[in-house]
């Protein structure tokens, strides 16, 4: 029925034939692919989850494995030295009797120091940091042994908040007692977070709690067999605090797994940036790029978590989602003054024949400077990691943040400019690439309440974008002059 030669001939003819599609179709294909690809956020969540877990694990290991002696910083020592009353105090303890009542006189719960040498400095020590609070009134305090009202205060803290009680100790009893847990908590949180005490160890017996915070030399204390306190067993309700008999609670030096409490800061920031950018990596065009204006504004959203590693040093990490635009504007006079020809074709209806007739027009044009105005856009997820040095003054916390930036480029699109040919073309790619950078910033945080602080943070960032991998002719180096504002939440 069919003559196969007919089909064969048509096949041969058409299979070799080519029709040129529209010029920009390939660019459209790339753009469509970019738009269809996995969203930036989905990508970032996966990577972010892994990165955050890794950093959290590392931070936890660092914190938990820190030796006990490290918790006393030089700063803490110097502060202790400033207070003559506590000069020789090597340990600080809180013995809290939960049955204590308001308004009671402080009883003689003075720690008994069994010194081998009566002349030793320890025997002269006046432990001022032993506190007793009537925390039963406060449900929160009662339900949480680690509550601030039960915390012993370090020398510095006492120096700041209870100077009067230290300067004028009771003639009968050296320890200073604070019988209002709320007040203690209030005073505790009034101190900037970096100066709050670390709890080195805690012992609970019935309703009695012994908290020991940072010591200068735990081994020395342990060897001196001190820290024995006597109190009445608490199985019998005691109404009169003064008549208490105190049983012994032995202090055992803590091992490395002792519990410490230091605040973790969670910062949410919006960053506005004045971006100055350099295009490099292709020597043919570097000089031309530099003649163009290369600055514009960008913004990013950041989340940052800071973990304490010592008294004043925090390690921080987090992530930022940025859409960095690099705008190039200006004109380049590479071919200025040269002559070129522009040909155009118009169709008119021939008045005689009535048929359309092509009219070709060629103009001689003298080149002027070529004006450029194009923008490249990069979707970047940043993973910062670094250290911060923390300070405090009244209601202000200050910190200097410095560290590395890991930039994950997930999409790049923009314009390639060939200044030699005076042509531009588009690029758009989802190819992922990673680059490194650095950041430095100075944070000032104003305390709004015990948990929240308002952050203002000027800073500087520098990083490179490997845009050549995404079809750009040039790589780009980004310099961001940044100003961040946000909130700091204190997790304790």
């Amino acid at each position: 029925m069919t003559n196969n030669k007919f089909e064969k001939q048509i096949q041969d003819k058409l299979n070799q034939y080519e029709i040129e599609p529209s010029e920009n179709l390939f660019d459209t294909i790339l753009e469509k692919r970019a738009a269809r690809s996995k969203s930036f956020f989905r990508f970032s969540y996966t990577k972010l989850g892994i990165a955050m877990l890794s950093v959290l694990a590392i931070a936890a290991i660092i914190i938990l494995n820190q030796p006990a002696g490290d918790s006393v910083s030089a700063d803490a020592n110097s502060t202790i030295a400033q207070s003559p009353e506590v000069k020789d105090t090597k340990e600080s303890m809180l013995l809290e009797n939960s049955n204590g009542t308001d308004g009671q006189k402080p009883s003689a719960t003075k720690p008994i120091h069994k010194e081998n040498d009566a002349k030793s400095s320890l025997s002269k020590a006046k432990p001022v940091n032993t506190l007793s609070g009537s925390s039963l009134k406060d449900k929160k305090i009662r339900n949480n042994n680690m509550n601030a009202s039960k915390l012993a205060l370090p020398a510095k803290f006492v120096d700041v908040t209870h100077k009067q009680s230290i300067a004028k100790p009771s003639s009968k009893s050296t320890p200073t007692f604070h019988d209002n847990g709320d007040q203690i908590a209030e005073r505790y949180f009034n101190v900037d977070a970096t100066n709050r005490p670390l709890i080195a160890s805690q012992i609970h017996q019935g309703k009695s709690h012994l908290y020991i915070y940072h010591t200068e030399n735990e081994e020395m204390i342990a060897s001196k067999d001190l820290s024995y306190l006597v109190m009445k067993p608490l199985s019998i309700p005691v109404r009169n605090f003064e008549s208490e008999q105190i049983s012994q609670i032995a202090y055992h030096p803590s091992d490395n797994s002792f519990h410490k409490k230091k605040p973790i800061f969670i910062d949410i920031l919006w960053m506005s940036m004045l971006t100055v950018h350099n295009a490099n990596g292709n020597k043919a065009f570097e000089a031309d790029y530099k003649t163009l204006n290369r600055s514009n504004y960008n913004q990013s959203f950041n989340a940052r978590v800071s973990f304490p590693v010592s008294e004043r040093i925090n390690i921080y990490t987090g992530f930022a989602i940025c859409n960095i635009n690099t705008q190039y504007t200006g004109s380049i006079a590479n071919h200025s003054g040269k002559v070129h020809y522009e040909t155009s074709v118009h169709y008119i209806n021939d008045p005689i024949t009535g048929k359309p007739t092509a009219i070709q027009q060629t103009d001689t044009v003298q080149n002027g400077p070529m004006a450029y105005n194009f923008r490249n856009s990069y979707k970047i997820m940043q993973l910062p990691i670094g250290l911060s040095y923390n300070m405090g003054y009244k209601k202000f916390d200050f910190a200097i943040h410095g560290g590395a930036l890991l930039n994950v480029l997930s999409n790049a699109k923009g314009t390639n400019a060939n200044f030699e040919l005076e042509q531009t073309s588009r690029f758009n790619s989802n190819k992922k690439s990673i680059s490194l950078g650095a950041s430095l910033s100075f944070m000032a945080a104003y305390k709004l309440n015990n948990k929240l602080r308002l952050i203002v943070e000027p800073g500087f960032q520098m990083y490179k974008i490997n845009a050549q991998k995404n079809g750009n002719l040039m790589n780009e180096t980004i310099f961001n002059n940044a100003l961040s504002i946000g909130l700091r939440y204190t997790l304790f």
Partner: protein
Amino acid sequence: MWANIKHRMTEEELLKGCIEERQECQREFYKRFAGKMMVVCTRYAKDKLEAEDMLQDGFIKVFDNIGKFKQEGSLEGWVRRIMVNTALNKIRTNKMKFEDIDGMGSQFVDGDSGILDKLSEEAILKIIAQLPNGYRYVFNMFAIEGFTHREIAEKLGIEEASSRSQYAKARKYLQNQIIQLEHIKL
């Protein structure tokens, strides 16, 4: 884009580059096949715009799935298959039209007659384009792509017998048109 493709890439290099999402390779790949694939799409599309739509969707599929290409058959054949399937997916929504074709003749175009040789590819495409949609699809699939009538019936959702009869009609129509065109030229 002025990426330096200093030498003509081998098919293997091209594939590797496309799998790595290197844009210069994707561009080269596109340049190598776009013209031929545009002809494929043009045969199925009602106009150039629709053909470019098909071509665009087809290349997106090609780039998305290029890693799945097993180097057993020809790359061009694989790309062509994707283009045809993309075109068929696109036209599947179009209602098949098999109305009577005017100008049906009984003249016979012999492959050896040389009439086809004298016609340009563009002219052949124009004649094919004159066929109503249903006939055109069947003719393209059977005569050029080499599908069987059973496959055509499955892909277009029509009866196998219908595919056969429509192909026969389309073929006769095309032959008649070709002869008429030849007479006009003479």
